[in-house]
Every structure is written in C-alpha cells, then in structure tokens.
C-alpha cells in the first residue's frame, strides 16, 4: 500500500472514531444539557419577574410585533425581540411577561437581556444574559447599580441622562448613564423601550380580541 494512502486511512480512522465518540457523548449528555438550559431560562425569568410561579413560552406573532415596534421608532436592526415568557401565579393567572430583547448597538455588539413587565406595565426587573462590553466601562451595565434603575418603574419610555435623573412620570423616566459608556447605556435603554412596546403590542392585541 502506498504511504500516502496508509497515512490518509489512519487519519480517516482517527477522525471517524473522534466523530463516533463525540456523537456518543452528545447523546449521553443531551438530556441533562437540555435540563440545564431550561433551568437557566427559568432562573433568568425568576430574576426579573419574582411574583410568578411558573413560566410558559408565549406563542405570538413576532413579525407583527416587530412592525408594531418599528412603527414606534425602534427598527429591528437596532433591537430584536426574542422569546416572550408568560409568568403565571399559583392560581394560573397571568401576572406579567418576561421579554428577551437583543439591542445590537452596544459598543461590543449585541447585548442580550430579559425584561420583566407586570400586567399593569410596571417594569419588575432587568437581567443580562450575555454582554461583551468594555471591562470597567460598559461592563458596568451588568451591575445592580445600573439595572435596578429600571425596576419598579411604570412609564411609557425610558431615556438616559448624564446630569442626574429626576422623578419618573407616567410618560418618561430617566436613567443615569454609566460614566464613560453612553453607547452601552443607550443600547440598554433602547432594549427596555422595545420590550415595553412589545408588551403594549401583546396586551393591546388581547384587549381588541375581547
């Protein structure tokens, strides 16, 4: 047998056995990995919407929601809205929604986070799932100091400010920008606003259906 053929066959055998081994490990760990994924999602929901007991994924018209949000001034290229989880209490009543949004205009690209919104439109919490901003600057977005500014506020729109925030109103609430990371702050605020619009769309649609 020529040398090159033997070499190729051995390399092929190594590759095939690696592939089989990977397939085996993939199958063995598939169920536990899926469980971890669900648990993680559950925890992310709990972090932003404490008052609910169970969370189920809501089936909604994503394209229509996106065009509703675009109509209000936030385009899909700025913020994409992902899955929406419906939070229910022990009695099975809907207490609010957990909306996953991904603004793509962070300094380091996409920032993915969840926003919990109660039935009356109050933001119950914001929690970051993935972020790749500058350490020491934009990364401060993932601290309670920044994120807690959104919590327990009922308003139509958030804006960032660099001069110290005032009292929130029904129409507008101010968020103190992270110093040195205005781009990150803008992306975060836009993401939360998109979640609020998505919530409007979801609840508005239910109203008209009734």
């Amino acid at each position: 047998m020529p040398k090159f053929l033997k070499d190729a066959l051995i390399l092929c055998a190594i590759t095939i056995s690696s592939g089989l081994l990977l397939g085996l490990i993939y199958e063995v760990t598939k169920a536990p990995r899926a469980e971890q994924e669900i648990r993680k999602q559950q925890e992310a929901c709990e972090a932003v919407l404490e008052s609910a007991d169970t969370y189920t994924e809501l089936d909604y018209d994503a394209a229509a929601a996106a065009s509703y949000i675009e109509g209000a001034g936030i385009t899909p290229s700025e913020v994409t809205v992902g899955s929406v989880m419906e939070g229910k209490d022990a009695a099975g009543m809907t207490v609010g929604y957990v909306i996953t949004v991904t603004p793509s205009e962070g300094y380091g690209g996409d920032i993915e986070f969840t926003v919990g919104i109660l039935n009356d439109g109050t933001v119950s919490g914001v929690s970051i799932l993935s972020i790749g901003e500058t350490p020491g600057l934009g990364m401060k977005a993932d601290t309670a100091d920044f994120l807690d500014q959104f919590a327990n506020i009922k308003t139509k729109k958030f804006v960032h400010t660099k001069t110290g925030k005032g009292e929130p109103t029904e129409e507008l609430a101010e968020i103190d920008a992270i110093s040195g990371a205005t781009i990150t702050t803008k992306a975060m605020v836009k993401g939360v606003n998109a979640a609020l619009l998505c919530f409007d769309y979801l609840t508005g649609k239910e109203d008209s259906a009734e």
Partner: protein
Amino acid sequence: MKRALERLYNGIIKENPTFVLMLGMCPTLATTTSLMNGIGMGLTTTLVLVLSNVVIAALRNLIPNGVRVPAYIVIVATMVTIVQFLLEAYLPSINDALGIYIPLIVVNCIILGRAESYASKNPVIPSLFDGLGMGLGFTVALSLLGAFRELLGAGTVLGYRIIPENFSISIFVLAPGAFFVLACLVAAQNKIRAAKGKKPQEGCNGDCGGCTSRCGNPKEEVEA
C-alpha cells in the same frame, strides 16, 4: 515519580509556557481581565492539555509522521468539545463562568506545542504530568497577570475592593494593559533568573529536548 516531579517543575518554573516559552499569548492577553477569569482559563486549559497529551501519547506509535498535525488537531478539538458537553451537562456553574473561553482552547498553541514536542515522543504517564505541569504553569501565569490587572485596573482582587474606585487605572483591564503587565512580569522573572546566574532565554536555548523547531544546530544560534 522523579520524572513526574521533574515534569511538573519544568512546566511551572523552568519552561513556563507564558513567561519562558511565550506560547498561547492570545488567550493570555485576552482573558486575564480579572483574577477569576485567569484561574478559570488556566484550569480549563490544564484539563484539556492533560486529556489531549494522554491520548496523543497513547496513539504516538499509530499516528504517521506525515499527517501528525491534522491528527493532533482532530484529537484536541474532540477533547475540547467533550469537556464542553460535560461541563454544560453536569457543572453548569463552571460552564457559565468559563463558557466563552472553552472553544478558544482548541486554538491554544500550548496544546499543539506540547503534543508535538513532548507527548508524541514520550509514554503516557510522563505526558500526563507534562500536561499537568504545563497547565499549572499556564494557570499560575494567568492568575498573576489577572491579579495585577484587576488590582490596578479595577482596584479589586477576586471582586473584593482593595484600592478606592477613584484611583483605579482602567487602561489595565483594557487590551494595552495586558501588554504592560505581561512585559513587566516577564522582565521581573528574567531579572530573578539573571540574579540566580541563569541567562535570560532568548529564542533557542540549546535545549533540543523541549524544542519543536528541529533546527539541528543548537549551540551556534545561542552564541551568535
């Protein structure tokens, strides 16, 4: 046993992959923004290094010389993916902390370097300790780098505040800071070596056993 200890000493001190061999610079510079990240990256790399060294040493007589590098890459990539699956399934908290670094390990040249220069020529047990020593050496180096960068750049160590926030120099947690700190640490360890009467190593040090370049004329280059 003596050989195992020699391998550990070699990896951690004598041929420290970061400070002496200067291998794996990309993850070294990129992931050491804090002490925790440095430790995490170091230990994950250690695990992959040990596994891949053992497998490559076990298969060393089977892998043909002509296709050894692709064979090593397949083995290393397989090991990394297995480690990632296992962490995702059974140790989710470690996976959350290290998730983004794990795929980076495939392209870490320390792993390929050790496969080529040690595991492919030595039996399984010494290769295991070689991987462990190199991995720990990498961990020590990354932890030092991470600790200095976190202390100077963010004023904290492992998240505990040491220096008040107003005095932290954020350039140290950014990319240029990695170069500054690495350069200072390498200079410091060269100074210590020089004080002990050992010459700071530049390129070839005549140690053909631990070298991959196969140039064949060790002494000339060192004297030139």
